[in-house]
């Protein structure tokens, strides 16, 4: 699914956010990405959806080098990845329903699919009460769940979630992570960046440890704090 070989990302200001990162994530895996603030987690996610391109090295997603994708191919890539953004990226003026419908339509779904699917996903993230609330009327945690609902709405082959529980209480956090695990069990690859020690320790999944742009560990059934 994702194959990174010596991926390096240097920002224009000279800041080297990722340094020769290499790893392989197979279809159907559930992987946590942990590391201090500024370690490069979001940078890696942005490259997976080609919001950024690697400065050097190759990053293959679904078997294709993302740096080489052009125009419509980028759209196709993104339609197959459900993304939960750290900053939500929801449209403030639209309702929760419209936000998801908006994304589904943009990725080619029919109105009928939307009508069927949207209540389903809102049920899954526990946001059914807020279907027709406008996004700027939501609490922080509700925003986060709306973002997750959108990401899973068109049944992507892979879900990439950046800090999906940062604004949630422990109970809701656990519910969300279990939701992602259930989706994973049905075959979807899931990649989660998180600072939430509790959920990492609880799930006992593969954990990739980033430190100042370098992978310093990669453990099956890992915990938040890297075993030495």
């Amino acid at each position, binding site marked *: 699914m994702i194959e990174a070989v010596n991926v390096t990302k240097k920002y224009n200001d000279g800041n080297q956010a990722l340094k020769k990162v290499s790893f392989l994530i197979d279809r159907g895996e559930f992987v946590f990405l942990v590391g201090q603030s500024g370690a490069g987690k979001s940078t890696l996610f942005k490259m997976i959806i080609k919001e950024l391109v690697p400065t050097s090295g190759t990053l293959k997603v679904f078997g294709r080098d993302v740096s080489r994708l052009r125009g419509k191919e980028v*759209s196709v890539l*993104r339609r197959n990845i459900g993304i939960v953004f750290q900053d939500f990226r929801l449209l403030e003026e639209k309702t929760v329903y419209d936000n998801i419908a908006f*994304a589904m339509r943009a990725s080619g779904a029919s109105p009928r699919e939307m009508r069927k699917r949207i209540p389903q996903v809102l049920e899954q993230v526990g946001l059914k009460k807020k279907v027709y609330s406008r996004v700027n009327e939501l609490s922080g945690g509700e925003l986060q769940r709306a973002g997750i609902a959108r990401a899973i709405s068109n049944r992507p082959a892979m879900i990439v979630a950046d800090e999906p529980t940062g604004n949630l209480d422990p109970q809701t956090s656990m519910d969300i992570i279990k939701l992602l695990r259930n989706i994973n069990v049905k075959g979807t690859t899931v990649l989660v960046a998180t600072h939430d020690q509790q959920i990492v320790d609880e799930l006992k999944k593969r954990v990739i440890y980033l430190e100042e742009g370098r992978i310093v560990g990669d453990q099956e059934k890992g915990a938040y704090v890297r075993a030495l």
Partner: protein
Amino acid sequence: MLFRNILFFMGESWKNLFRNGWMSLASIGVVAVTLFILSVFVLINMNVHHLTEVIEQDVEIALYIDEEATSDEREQLVENLRNHPEIKKADFVSKEEGLERLRDQLGEENGLLEGYENPEDNPLRDAYEISMHDPEAVSSVAREIETYPAVGGVEFGEDVVENLFDFTGVLQVTVMGLMVALALTATFLISHTIRLTVMLRKREITIMKYVGATNWFIRWPFLFEGFNLGLLGTVIPLVGIYFGYESVLQWIDANLKFFPSLIPLETAMGQVIILVVPLGMALGIIGSLISMGRYLKV
């Protein structure tokens, strides 16, 4: 492009138009004002052109026949006038007719003409009213026919006529220049407006891109919106021009008896519609296209 998408795009563009409320109104207003001024200029231009022609047709030479001319000389004169290449028409106005006209012209004050009832006392002379193919040749032709036999005198409004030609010429050039400037302004303003709309929706566009929308999926609603704005922008000037021009015509009709008639309402509106409607739509679309480019790189 799927049919359901077309409907969706059109719906979106109208929704945006209403959602952006005053902002859309502003754009439409700008387009409307521009097209309105443009229309007014077109009307002025058309009418100046029209009036120039009318006035040019009015520019005639009056040729008075020498009272002592023989009938041979008179015939010779007719022949000369008929054969002159510059002369389009030469109408004979007998001195009786001339007196009749004068009576009409003076109206109630025709007490002045008392004592001239007797044809023998008619103080006027027989005349020809001559019009030219090329009105600008007036003075040279006048000087020429003055030398013909049987000609007692020649009259035309020399200087004023020449100045009027020059004046309308300058006016037309100025108006043309302004029209071009306005057309450019309109394109500029529409692209400016849509560019701002695009900027205000930057967030929406960014999100669409990150959830996998294609470039054209993003572009269509903006194209429709530009089109709508342009089209709506034509309505106000057309209505305004219709009633405005109508009342100008009526006012002139009521107040300026001697003013030559302007182009009739229907003809004028036809011209304005042919110019303004396609222009509004085209400007809208071009405006959208110009503004979208830079924001839609994936």
